[in-house]
Structures are given as C-alpha cells and as structure tokens.
C-alpha cells in the first residue's frame, strides 16, 4: 500500500497542479457574491431583482463548475457536455414560456 503508485497509460495524472490557495480564493469570491446578492435583495430594484439575483447565481455556479468541479482542468469534451445540458434546459424554459408569456 505504501509503494509508489506509478501512472500507467489511461490513468490521468491525479495532480492538476492546483494548490489550496486557489480554492480559498474562489470560496472568498463565493461568499462575497452571496453578501452582494443578499444586500441587493434589501434594495427595491423592482423587476430587476430577478435579473440581478439570477446573474449573481450564474456567476457563482461558473466558479463552482470551473474550479471546485475541475471543469477547467478537464478535457474540452466535458465542457461541451455541460453546455449541451444547459442549452437543453434553456430550450425547455423558452418553449414553455411560449405558452405563458407571449400570447
């Protein structure tokens, strides 16, 4: 168990080269964005509140996906797959709202 674990073809190198610092930085960013979205909720922004809240949530998601979930270290295929999933969901939303918003 204590022997050296050598990499053989097909096994990706486990070390992505990222240290702890990057994760801490992203965490601080996520907390700051949480503070921002809570602060903005206290201000009467009218209908813009939905736009700002969802924009901030999307930025937070991108940070989690790219750094915590290692998407930026993965093969490009992973990012395409994620994009296809998100676009599919968006299509569900847009098509549904054709029935509710634009009639």
């Amino acid at each position, binding site marked *: *168990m204590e022997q050296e674990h050598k990499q*053989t073809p097909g096994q990706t190198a486990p*070390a992505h080269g*990222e240290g702890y610092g990057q994760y801490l930085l992203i965490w601080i960013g996520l907390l700051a964005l*949480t503070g921002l*979205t809570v602060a903005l*909720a206290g201000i009467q922004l009218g209908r813009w509140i939905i736009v700002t809240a969802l924009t901030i949530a999307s930025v937070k998601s991108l940070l989690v996906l790219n750094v915590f979930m290692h998407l930026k270290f993965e093969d490009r295929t*992973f990012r395409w797959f994620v994009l296809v999933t998100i676009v599919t969901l968006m299509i569900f939303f847009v098509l549904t709202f054709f029935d509710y918003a634009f009639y």
Partner: protein
Amino acid sequence: MSTAAPSPTVEVHVHRDDEGSRMGMWLFLFTELVLFGGMFLVYAVYRFKYPLEFQLASTQLDTFVGTVNTIILLTSSLTVALSIAALQKGRKAMAQMLVGMTLILALAFLVNKYFEWSHKIALGIYPKSPDLLNKPPGEILYFGLYYTMTGLHALHVVIGMGILLVMMVFVSRGTVHPGHTTRLEAGGLYWHLVDLIWIFLFPLFYLLH
C-alpha cells in the same frame, strides 16, 4: 489495487480509465440537473403567473437562516475540494479531516433546515394545512414548491453525506489513495452539485421579494 501483491517488483496491470469514470459521474449529474431543472421550470411558470403572491410569500422566509445555510454549503464545497487536493499531495490524515469537516457542515445545514421547517409548521404553514389552504393560490403554490424543492435538496444532502461517509472509509482503508483519487473526486462532484442547486434555490425562495 491496494490488495495486490505487496512486492513492489510485481507489476499488476489493473485497467483503469479515470477520465471515463469522471465522465460517467458527470453524465449522472446531468440527469440530476434535469430533475431539478423540471422543478425550476414549474417554479418559473407559477412565479410568472402569480408574481405578487410569490413576492409576498417569500417575505415570510427567514433570509438570515437562508444566508447562514448558503455560507455553510459553500464552505462545505471548499472543504471537499481541499480534501481531494490534500489527498493528491499525499496528506491522508488532512484529507480525512477535511471530509469529516464537510460532514459536520452538512449536518449543520440539516439542523438549520429542521428548525426552519419546524418553525414554519408551528406557524401552520405546511402542505394542505388549513391555514395555508386559506391563503391565495399563488402562496399555496409557493409553499408547495418550497417544501418540495428544498425537501428534495435536503434528501440530496443526506445522500451526499452517505457518499462522503463511504469515502472516509475508502480513504482510511487505502482503497482511495494518492495514486487513485477518482472515487473521492466523484463523491466531491456529487457534493458540489448539491451546492450548485442551492446556489439557485437560495435567491429564488429567500431573496426575491
């Protein structure tokens, strides 16, 4: 792999495809995204139909509790990401401690959720309660969605805790070790998904008023 011949001179070839394993986990996460996506779609439609009632109902949730739980989940995502980094650097004890911290944070999230729900139920707001049924339809839908979506999310927190507990055992037994962290990474991915869902649940239920 760890149970293979102890002699370092014996080369045992075990077929492994770490990238494929992670891809499999991502494919599973996509099904989770679509599951929650369907619920977010229902939320979007009803919010569009009953904007004022949704606004009014959301003021009845405690923003402070929601914010605390957001901070807890974001921090737990950090600790699980750090645990993978620690294990890859060969620091097994630190990795175990960080997974343990993630579990404690997850438990704290659930305790908060328990008190939050209990408080709402004590106020007479729970599905099909007489008090709730007397409210306008938009508020009934809001609280129905609140219990369903945060409930399904809480179930994912419980499942995530189970997965992380198994990872703790794997790390301590050496099944997951610095040369093979894929399982811990997959467990971490699941945990981050739970965080990701909450990142959207939090503003939609607690902040839009």
